[in-house]
């Protein structure tokens, strides 16, 4: 299996006023293509920071991150934005849908950055909504949907531009158990049937069971070897 994400000696330091906070200390990690990795650890362990670096939302202070053969830690802000648009889908704990847009329009958002026609954008958004089982909710605004439905719309938005990598930050943190399982099954299906590489941050051991591998972080370092499910 080819390595999709190659992380070497990654460090991350935040400067908060005069305070220097070292969040990650020399992380080395390979994530093969088609993998489903759960990043676990206590609060403040650096798992979300690592996820942000993998997803190109932030840049490391030191070390290198190579995704599909490209060093994303050396990309400019504009290049990184274009790279994210083309290669990464994001799912967050609080869904982060735009409340003024319908589910359909929310899903179409990443496609606005492509050259696709309006009709093609609509068609692809409709397919993504069908894949997450919400084709009948296309016209609904986020406030008219349940939490689980909102998260499924967010997943549809994450996959609509067919990214290689799916980055999920506590995707079930705001959901009840049954709904969380539905969402996790959906993410698992995207990994197994559609070949998406998934990196998911979670506190929840049950959620982590859906992943192929579990990686633990504590105080900015990986603890032990990755555990396979």
């Amino acid at each position: 299996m080819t390595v999709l994400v190659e992380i070497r000696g990654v460090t991350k330091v935040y400067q908060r006023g005069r305070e220097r906070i070292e969040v990650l200390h020399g992380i080395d990690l390979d994530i093969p293509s088609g993998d489903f990795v759960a990043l676990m650890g206590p609060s403040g362990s650096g798992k979300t920071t690592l996820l942000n670096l993998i997803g190109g939302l932030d840049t490391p202070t030191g070390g290198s991150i190579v995704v599909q053969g490209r060093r994303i830690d050396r990309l400019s802000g504009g290049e990184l934005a274009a790279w994210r648009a083309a290669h990464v889908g994001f799912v967050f704990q609080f869904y982060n849908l735009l409340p003024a847009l319908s589910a359909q329009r929310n899903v179409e958002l990443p496609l606005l950055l492509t050259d696709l026609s309006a009709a093609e954008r609509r068609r692809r958004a409709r397919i993504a909504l069908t894949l997450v089982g919400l084709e009948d909710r296309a016209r609904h605004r986020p406030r008219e949907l349940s939490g689980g439905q909102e998260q499924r719309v967010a997943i549809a938005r994450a996959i609509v531009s067919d990214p290689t990598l799916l980055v999920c930050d506590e995707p079930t943190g705001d959901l009840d158990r049954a709904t969380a399982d539905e969402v996790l099954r959906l993410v698992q299906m995207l990994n197994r049937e559609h070949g998406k590489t998934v990196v998911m941050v979670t506190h929840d051991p049950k959620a982590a069971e859906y992943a192929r591998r579990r990686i633990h972080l504590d105080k900015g370092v990986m603890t032990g070897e990755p555990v396979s499910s």
Partner: protein
Amino acid sequence: MRYLPLLWAGLFRKKTRTILTLLSIVVAFALFGLLQAVQAAFESGADAADAKRLLTTARYSIIEPLPMAYQRRIEQVPGVVGVAYADWFGAKYQNESNAFPVFAVDPARYLDMYPEFTIARAQREAFVKTRTGAVAGKRLADRFGWRVGQKLPISSEIHPKTDGSMNWEFDLVGIIDADDPAVRGNTDMVLINVAYFDEARQVGKGKTGWYIVRIADSTQARGISASIDTLFMNSPDETKTQPEKEFAIGFAKQIGDIGALVTRILVAVFFTILILTGNTMAQSIRERIPELAILKTLGFSDGKVTALVLAEAVLLLILGGAIGMGAAVAAMPALNGSTGGRFPPLFVGPETWLLAAVVAAVVALVIGLPPALRANRLKIVDALSGH
């Protein structure tokens, strides 16, 4: 166009707030359109002025008459290609409040001098041939319900007839108008044939009020003006000659500096709008920081997010500006009707639309730039974590 639904949704995310903001912009631009129309109406005399026309009046007061004999002498000044004259009649019609300008003119010379006035060929010929003839501006004729062919009884406050009566009667033989709305205000008058007027008046025979001089080259206006005035220097009737536009501006300023007044009011209005709308825009963007961060997460570049925020301000101003200016235009017929023709015609010209577009663009830029720059500097990780 592909971002329009996104812009629209962002703009109307809080409908009540946006509609109230929009209303304030609509009112500001409606006021802008109306006040600009008033200013344009006041300045229409100057705007309609022809650079190749000079006005020659008595040197010390425009109410002092000048000899009609000056006409031939002025015509001989090099660079002069035509001369007409007009005399103030001092008219009232039916009652004191119905006052309007009546000028005693040589019909052919006067109408040739003002080619911007339109009149039917047959009516022009009738005016030239009819010694008691008169032509009236269309708005004035409409206001009083005059019809071509009727007698026009007008009293003069200045000129008694040879029999001592102040009541004159003319034959209305034509209607004058203008295609350009800026010129139309200048047709709110009655022209009478000087041939009859000069013969029938008791005093002031052989005198006229002022001369209108057409020159071949507008760049020679100063020199020709000086030549005309030199011609009559040290005579009992010295002259003052100046370009028509200068004369019109000076005349309008006797009423008041309408331009400065309008500018001050509009500056106050738009300054208020700037603060109100700017505050609303800033608040709206502040509330949507996480949403903007999401757009950046999805791959919208800093520049694109900045442009989206700016475009929202532009869209707000385009909407408010267009509706406001549209309201001003829609109000014009009713306003013009309510003045009963006592005021020059109000209109919103292309220059006013252009100025409105410039004002809208500047306001959009001023209110949109600070939140747009904030959006530009936004760091995704900080915004999503609530910092």
